């Protein structure tokens, strides 16, 4: 058979050190499965699987500001396997779709496949990152976890590069390649069963993401109206909020009323002060006063009285949840928001403890 048109390529053998990764991984996996079987025989799992709360006393509050490079420990109720300490690296925080991209750490100490990387961290549960299992999760759910450390810039940069290799299927090179595992080529490879198990850890968070997206969509579809005096009404619920009187001797600051809603019920009303970034055509509203219900990554709608449809922009809460950001889709929408005489912001709270 002719090879005259065959594109030129070169393949190479993986180093001995990386072959040892697979060997070591298989050893750990065997031990893991056998110990799990022992525990199942001893019926230890039934008691552990009880869902519950109530014993929790003086728990450290969650670290609600989610930042790129955070190493976070997810809360128990967001993880499928009872008792699992699931650490994740925050790779990206998206300010446009309510999610953050996280990469989980493996329970094993060596990379099992091409898209797992030996981080160089000494802590046993932080030795290997699973890029193949990178997940978008709701940022507000991530805000309900604990920060236990941070990746330095150099390590974070490598992690981001490796994530792109994972999604494109390409290979890292040089020193970085020496820290990743070997590719899975055989459909019967035992590593695929492990990947299935690990994917399942995120079932609850995927459900929360689905609920969040539903909440955001429903809020954007809610029918609202302004009257000539600026009173704001949720039409279906027939709930009206009068426009508060302006304070005398205004400093020129622009304020808006903010309603926190959960399933069509208003759970709190707050005020927020506007800051405009003309360069990026973005509005940031900082909540004034009680921020108790707030977390980053909640969907928000900005309504104004000067357009056919009151919904002027959709945005989200950021930082620790006390800043609401809107980036209007067009310059015309940006101008409409600036010129609106009456504006209201509605933050839609998903069920945060489901």
């Amino acid at each position, binding site marked *: 058979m002719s090879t005259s048109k065959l594109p030129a390529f070169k393949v190479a053998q993986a180093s001995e050190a990386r072959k040892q990764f697979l060997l070591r991984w298989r*050893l750990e996996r065997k031990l893991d499965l056998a110990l799990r079987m022992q525990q199942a025989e001893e019926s230890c799992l039934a008691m552990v699987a009880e869902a519950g*709360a109530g014993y929790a006393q003086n728990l450290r509050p969650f670290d609600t500001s989610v930042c790129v490079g955070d190493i976070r420990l997810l809360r128990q109720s967001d993880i499928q396997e009872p008792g699992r300490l699931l650490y994740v690296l925050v790779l990206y925080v998206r300010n446009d779709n309510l999610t953050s991209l996280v990469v989980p750490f493996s329970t094993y100490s060596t990379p099992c496949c091409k898209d797992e990387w030996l981080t160089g961290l*000494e802590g046993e549960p932080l030795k290997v990152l699973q890029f193949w299992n990178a997940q978008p999760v709701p940022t507000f759910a991530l805000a309900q976890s604990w920060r236990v450390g941070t990746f330095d810039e150099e390590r974070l940069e490598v992690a981001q590069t490796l994530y792109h290799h994972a999604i494109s299927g390409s*290979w890292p090179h040089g020193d970085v390649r020496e820290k990743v595992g070997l590719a899975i080529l055989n459909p019967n490879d035992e590593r695929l069963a492990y990947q299935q198990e690990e994917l399942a850890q995120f079932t609850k968070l995927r459900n929360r993401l689905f609920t969040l997206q539903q909440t955001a969509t429903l809020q954007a579809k809610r029918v609202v109206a302004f009257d000539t005096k600026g009173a704001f009404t949720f039409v279906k619920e027939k709930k009206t909020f009068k426009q508060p009187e302006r304070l005398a001797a205004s400093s020129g600051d622009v304020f808006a009323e903010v309603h926190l809603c959960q399933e069509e019920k208003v759970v709190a009303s707050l005020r927020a002060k506007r800051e405009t970034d003309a360069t990026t055509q973005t509005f940031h509203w900082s909540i004034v006063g009680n921020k108790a219900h707030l977390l980053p990554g909640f969907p928000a709608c900005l309504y104004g009285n000067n357009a056919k449809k009151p919904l002027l922009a959709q945005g989200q809460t950021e930082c620790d949840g006390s800043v609401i950001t809107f980036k209007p889709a067009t310059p015309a929408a940006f101008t409409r928001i600036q010129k609106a005489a009456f504006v209201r912001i509605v933050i839609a709270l998903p069920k945060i403890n489901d």
Partner: protein
Amino acid sequence: MPKENIHKVEPQSWQEWKEACSIERCRSKKTLQQLSTFGRLRLDAALRSISPEVASHYCAADLGNRAWLKIEQYLYAGAFDKQKKECKAYKDQILEGCTDSSHFEAILSLKVKQEIARWILSEECFRIVQKKDKETGRKKYAYIRDESLAEELDDLTDQNDGVYVEPASASDDEAVEGAAAFKAKQFWAGLNTSKNAIKRLMLVCLLNDIWDMNAVLSSGLSDCKKTKLYAERETLLKSLEMLDWGSECKEPAEKAYMTRRMLPHLKEICEKWLNTAENSELKRFIVTAGSATCA
């Protein structure tokens, strides 16, 4: 302290430990003793059946809190300063889902017997074999110290031939994929003659995981004898193995790797071909025989 209380960790002791970062910072003797015992007994229970030697190394009664410190070392995730509040997050995480102190102890026990035991054993390079108990006939796992990693590495090589080969450099990533796609087209075209019709049928079966030649015979898709089908399949597998991948790809493992990279492309071509009207009968057979194989 009365001896019967040693095995129980009182809620106050858990509380002190939770506040104090590590057992080393707990002041109460009772707490120290209860936690040390808790850790020692759990870890010993997990390790002793596997390796009395390792169990004694960590869990002998005269070693004080060594077992508990090993447990903490794992839970702390090692990389951080134990004095910082971040390092206690694991305690909050475990406590968050618990109903009472027994539930908390059950979760912690499971972690010790499963994750921490695995960690210690794999650090000690143990491996597992399955043995039959002579008296009861029951299958049991036995753990033996892995004297020679090389032995298992050979086993790996045999099992996953070709798995160690990869594109050599960044520019080879796409080139490998391109070569695999090119070769798939070329290979398929080579079977596109009436002389090779049976071979192509065998390839379609292979790509769709159909190995039962009786099913092929009874489908009426070929009037060959069974021995001929087997012979054609053998020749097909040989020709896949012998494909010429150029001068830079001569080693058997390298060729096997490239053939594996080629198979998804070949399957894609095959699916397109099966979806044409003249192949509807074959497609029906593939779907039916494929699902029968799965069942």
